[in-house]
């Protein structure tokens, strides 16, 4: 069975929780005791209806305040696919948590209330989802029952969203008119929207083609850990363990190890379950090389004719995730990219993006909590990186504050060429 990870975003009251509840319920993935607990909590609070949001809001503070603070993960499957839902908070204050949920998503499910059309938050969510490189968007125009299933309303929102999305990169957008409350076009096809020829939401989630979203062209193997048993029959064994982060790797392939630049060939690809003929993303395997090289964690195995950029100059979009300090020019952080750890100096804040209007403020010299901007770094070691858009695995990094040990920034690499 295939697996699809998607994140859900929407403003407060657009019906996100109702939609997830509806999908889980109709796909028979809500358990009776979960349902009973939600009903009980709902009636204890004096709600008139069973509040499906209680299914996903798992923390005490969230239930008390009636808002989603952090990502909740939900799981369900149909005979075709296993789904992992990252239910992310829509409020601007929790953007960093939305980014956490969006970073691994194959698809973004964006909710829009048919009565209100696109609001500031929809724009922000769409922009962030695109920034995080989510290849597929599904825009659910919800509460269609409240606008008399009017095709014109749906078309207007579709046109508005399409125009907005043309300002950044999205590979694939699908629009679906739904009523989360009544279930129209969620799992079952609606008779209220004869003008809509497309798939229901669940059908789309089951069918959307995600296999080619992975990069199967550029072979990338960041060495994560060196396996050296140094005992018994495996006395001389030296294997490089890691997760294939691009391309297809096979025994016999000529490879180069960065940064040393030594070329050799893949002797074998090992796994507990036996030799591997072809390793591809996201397989975790162990590579043995023909020559006895001394390769360590943080180094990169790739093909001689297809290498990542190796550079100490990094140009990236960064989302800042702490309120304790601001990202400022001259500041230094620990940077972690693949299995490589170095230190990074902020050389230049090129601009800050207003996530609501996409306006670029060239005067900005810092990023505050939840702000996004284009930053130029200089690193102590060269990173072996690709553009994020080409490879999410080798194009992403996190920034860690050395004083607090917190993860303070998320970066998506635009290029690794020195800027003038």
């Amino acid at each position: 069975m295939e697996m699809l990870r998607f994140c859900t975003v929407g403003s407060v009251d657009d019906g996100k929780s109702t939609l997830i509840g509806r999908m889980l319920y109709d796909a028979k993935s809500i358990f009776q005791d979960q349902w009973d607990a939600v009903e009980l909590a709902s009636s204890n609070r004096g709600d008139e209806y069973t509040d499906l949001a209680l299914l996903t809001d798992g923390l005490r503070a969230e239930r008390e305040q009636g808002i989603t603070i952090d990502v909740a993960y939900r799981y369900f499957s149909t005979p075709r696919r296993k789904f992992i839902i990252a239910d992310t908070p829509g409020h601007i204050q929790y953007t960093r948590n939305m980014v956490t949920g969006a970073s691994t998503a194959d698809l973004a499910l964006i909710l829009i209330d048919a009565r209100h059309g696109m609001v500031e938050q929809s724009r922000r969510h769409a922009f962030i989802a695109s920034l995080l490189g989510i290849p597929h968007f599904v825009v659910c125009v919800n509460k269609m029952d409240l606008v008399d299933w009017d095709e014109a309303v749906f078309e207007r929102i579709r046109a508005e969203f399409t125009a907005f999305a043309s300002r950044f990169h999205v590979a694939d957008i699908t629009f679906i008119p739904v009523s989360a409350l009544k279930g129209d076009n969620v799992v079952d096809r609606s008779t209220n929207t004869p003008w809509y020829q497309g798939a229901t939401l669940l059908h789309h989630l089951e069918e959307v083609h995600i296999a080619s979203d992975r990069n199967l062209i550029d072979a990338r193997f960041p060495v994560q850990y060196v396996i050296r048993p140094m005992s018994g029959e495996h006395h001389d064994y030296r294997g490089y363990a890691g997760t294939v982060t691009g391309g297809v790797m096979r025994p016999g392939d000529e490879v180069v190890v960065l940064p040393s630049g030594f070329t050799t060939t893949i002797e074998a690809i090992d796994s507990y379950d036996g030799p591997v003929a072809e390793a591809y993303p996201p397989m975790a395997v162990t590579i043995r090389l023909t020559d006895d090289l001394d390769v360590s964690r943080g180094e990169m195995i790739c093909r001689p004719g297809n290498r990542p950029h190796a550079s100490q100059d990094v140009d990236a979009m960064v989302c800042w995730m702490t309120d304790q300090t601001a990202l400022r020019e001259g500041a230094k952080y620990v940077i972690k990219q693949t299995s490589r750890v170095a230190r990074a100096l902020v050389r230049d804040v090129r601009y800050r993006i207003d996530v609501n209007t996409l306006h670029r403020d060239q005067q900005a010299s810092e990023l505050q909590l939840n702000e996004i901007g284009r930053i130029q770094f200089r690193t102590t070691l060269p990173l072996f990186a690709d553009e994020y858009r080409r490879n999410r695995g080798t194009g992403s990094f996190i920034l860690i504050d050395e004083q607090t040990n917190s993860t303070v920034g998320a970066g998506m690499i635009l290029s690794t060429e020195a800027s003038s």
Partner: protein
Amino acid sequence: MSEPSPSLQTYELSHLRQLESESIHIFREVVAEFERPGLLFSGGKDSIVMLRLAEKAFWPGRIPFPVVHVDTGHNFPEVLEFRDRRAEELGLRLIVGSVQQAIDEGRLVDETGPRATRNRLQTPILLETIAQHKIDAAFGGARRDEEKARAKERVYSFRDEFGQWDPKNQRPELWNLYNGRHRQGENIRVFPISNWTELDIWQYIQEEGFEIPSIYLAHERPVFKRDGMLMPVSPFLTPNADEPVFDARVRFRTVGDMTCTAAVASEAATLETVIAEIAATRITERGETRADDRFSEAAMEDRKREGYF
């Protein structure tokens, strides 16, 4: 230069193999970056799957960390036997933190009464064992589908010097880039199988064909009914006068302390039939079988804040 030639091969991994790869990646990352990891073994099917994943992650080397068991003194004998045998087979060091010993030494006070459980007493012993052995990363077999507080927890769950989880202030966790940095005395709980569901676990056990303790399959045993759950009779749990004991065919869905783990009525004596039952069930495993989570809506969140797994 020869680039890989296009072929008809689709290079797709099944969901179980994707989950497996993700877990292996996490195990390796921790061992590469921490000084003294340890694997918390609960005896449950989840820790058994964890052991297999760890074995795969470092093969042909041995698992490079010890197994830590917080023994409440109320364990299923089948589980202890299994634990010792697996540790021996894998050549693992076994660290046991004993709740019974702490009670005997007067450091902890046992609960009394018919509903006494040692569940809460596990936490201080866990923290003590972690501190004593200077464990900086403790692998746990928790899954996000188990419970709503767990649904919110990161793969790397940062704990302060008191072992506490601060759910409102979790570190952002992006892609597969984990941040394990911490100060002395703090530690990280790591949950490599966060994204697995109960059904995934069972399907994996079946695909891999490995052994699990016999109590997971249907067997005959004396039980009594309490709060609608089938509780096993044991030296540690005696029924009240109004709780008649009867023999039933049962299996366990989760395995924890014998005083708070309930059985489910079942005829499923093989993995295939267990999987069929799980796939059809309408009740979560914790809701059905864990008395400890029924205290309140936020029971798990509260225990985690105190330092629980």
